[in-house]
């Protein structure tokens, strides 16, 4: 029997659910982080995530009510208090979301605008150098000979190459919004600007003012500008892309809630860029953050503290003794807790063994149910398709047909492993249709439910935190150093990152002559004399 009083999202589909509560719940939860709410406290009723459907999904609700009886048990009542409350944290979070989204877009657009302007200026400068003499003093210009016209072609192609290269390197959708300016890019932009300005200065003074007649010289000057721009682009590639490819540091990333750890090898990057790389890898390497798994240790901790109460027998003392009393109280509590014959370790051991057994039992039932369900479906051959018998289904209908037979076992398994909020019924059916279409075996279908995958695996709404905060003692634009530590905080947890330098590896060579591999038997003989 299900003894939790948690109001599971699945009971929405029950005919017995309360209609009015449903809508209010959904509109509010679109803004909130679900996990935060569910882990808020153990005293109030936790409300797990509603299924991942927008508010307009009401029609599908009605359609699925027909299948409801087979979709697991429904849970018990909801107490009225926590449903309609909107905590202070949620208000803060909603306002923060609005603020941040506006600020971020401004910064992004500003950056894009500046870079487009710079690009246009840079691109049009050589063309301006070539065209201006023709416009300003066409009669005095010496005619352009063959070599000079050859240079026109070279200018054209180099400009084309520059355009393609700049498009390839810079005009990519930005991966992330960094807190401080990207130092290398700013440096390069400044360099390009200064460079172009100095060329304009020279051109203005020496050519425009004096109205030079040597057109070939002017064309060569424009060609040299384009060459230099190509070299600056090469510098940009080296600084922005190539320099950090060689691994230099090994970063150890630990999640604060459950200790999941990964290691990454990165090159010489600034702290903010390293943070971006780590976060991109976080979504594919770390198992999804499941707050339901953390409640057990919290309740144990609560029990440890709740067991003891310290009384001050000596009566109220003076003010300056209050601090001393508090200190001695805490020390007394720690000492008493250490001496107490605590059997919580025993409970933990048996609880874990029991849980393990339960999980294995349910897993066995689930595997059998799914295998059996898959045998009811058969892929139709080509010839049969032409004959068109009655019961032809597309993958989605086929999935809906076999889903009820495994639904109960699956839901029980998800409940036991506390994964039920990660998978909605809709997503399970979609995955089932997908597996059937691609000829996956039952084991392949089950794999995403039996093991917790990385956050990427679950729907987009599961990517709970896209707003990360970088907390670092050193400046975030400074480079990584051996021993630097920084934190990446999101609403539910934080990632602690420590850096270690990869040691200098000294490789030595040793040559072993293949003919020197000779062997002998080891004898231990005993002789009687």
């Amino acid at each position, binding site marked *: 029997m299900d003894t939790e009083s948690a109001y599971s999202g699945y009971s929405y589909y029950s005919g017995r659910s309360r209609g009015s509560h449903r809508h209010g719940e959904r509109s509010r939860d679109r803004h909130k982080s679900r996990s935060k709410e569910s882990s808020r406290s153990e005293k109030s009723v936790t409300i797990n995530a509603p299924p991942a459907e927008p508010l307009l999904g009401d029609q599908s609700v009605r359609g699925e009510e027909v299948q409801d009886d087979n979709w697991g048990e429904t849970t018990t009542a909801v107490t009225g208090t926590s449903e309609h409350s909107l905590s202070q944290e949620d208000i803060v979070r909603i306002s923060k979301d609005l603020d941040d989204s506006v600020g971020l877009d401004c910064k992004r657009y500003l950056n894009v605008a500046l870079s487009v302007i710079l690009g246009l200026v840079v691109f049009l400068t050589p063309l301006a150098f070539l065209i201006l003499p023709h416009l300003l003093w066409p009669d005095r210009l010496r005619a352009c000979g063959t070599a000079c016209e050859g240079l026109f072609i070279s200018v054209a192609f180099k400009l084309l190459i520059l355009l393609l290269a700049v498009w390839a390197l810079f005009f990519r959708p930005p991966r992330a919004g960094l807190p401080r300016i990207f130092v290398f890019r700013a440096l390069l932009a400044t360099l390009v600007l200064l460079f172009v300005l100095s060329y304009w200065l020279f051109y203005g003074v020496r050519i425009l003012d004096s109205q030079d007649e040597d057109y070939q010289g002017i064309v060569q000057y424009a060609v040299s500008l384009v060459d230099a721009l190509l070299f600056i682009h090469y510098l940009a590639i080296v600084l922005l892309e190539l320099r950090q490819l060689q691994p230099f540091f090994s970063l150890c990333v630990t999640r604060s809630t459950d200790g999941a750890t990964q290691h990454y090898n990165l090159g010489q990057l600034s702290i903010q860029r390293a943070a971006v790389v780590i976060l991109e890898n976080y979504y594919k390497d770390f198992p999804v953050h499941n707050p339901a798994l953390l409640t057990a240790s919290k309740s144990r901790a609560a029990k440890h503290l709740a067991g003891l109460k310290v009384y001050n027998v000596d009566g109220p003392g003076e003010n300056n003794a209050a601090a001393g009393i508090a200190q001695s109280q805490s020390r007394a509590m720690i000492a008493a807790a250490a001496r107490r014959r605590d059997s919580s370790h025993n409970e933990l051991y048996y609880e874990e063994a029991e849980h393990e057994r339960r999980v294995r039992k349910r897993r066995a039932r689930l595997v059998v149910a799914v295998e059996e369900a898959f045998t009811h479906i058969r892929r139709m051959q080509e010839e049969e398709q032409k004959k068109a018998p009655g019961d032809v289904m597309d993958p989605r209908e086929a999935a809906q047909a076999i889903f009820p037979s495994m639904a109960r076992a699956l839901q029980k398994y998800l409940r036991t492993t506390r994964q039920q909020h990660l998978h909605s019924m809709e997503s399970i059916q979609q995955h089932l249709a997908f597996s059937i279409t691609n000829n996956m075996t039952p084991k392949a279908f089950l794999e995403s439910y039996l093991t917790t995958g990385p956050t990427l695996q679950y729907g987009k709404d599961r990517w709970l935190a896209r707003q990360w905060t970088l907390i670092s003692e050193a400046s975030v634009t400074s480079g990584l150093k051996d021993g630097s530590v920084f934190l990446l905080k999101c609403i539910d947890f934080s990632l602690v990152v420590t850096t270690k330098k990869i040691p200098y590896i000294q490789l030595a060579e040793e040559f072993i002559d293949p003919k020197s591999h000779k062997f002998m038997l*080891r*004898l*231990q*003989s*005993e*002789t*009687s*004399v």
Partner: protein
Amino acid sequence: MSFIPGQPVSAVVQRIEIHKLWDGDNLILGFSIGGGIDQDPSQNPFSEDKADKGIYVTRVSKGGPAEVAGLRLGDKIMQVNGWDMTMVTHDQARKKLTKKNEDVVRLLVTRRSLEDAVRQSMMQH
């Protein structure tokens, strides 16, 4: 008895004289040896230093001439009739012990208890 390769070995030894016994056609001494420079020293259960490739007594038959003469299990044989036994192959050791024309073999053997006894007696002074 410390064994440092290249350095002279010093040990406290006991002189044991074994008279060979006629057993049918053969002269036997009544014990078995193991070890030698061509053998694997790490398998030796009696040696202190597992790199010691000397000749060790691995079995003493009950009531045989060796036991009567005072040879014990685990003794390391240093000399046989003046021939060195610390750097010989297993076969050479066997040959030195089983010479047909010798009736008596005089062994110098060493064991841990000898050294301990000497050290104890020295400490008492």
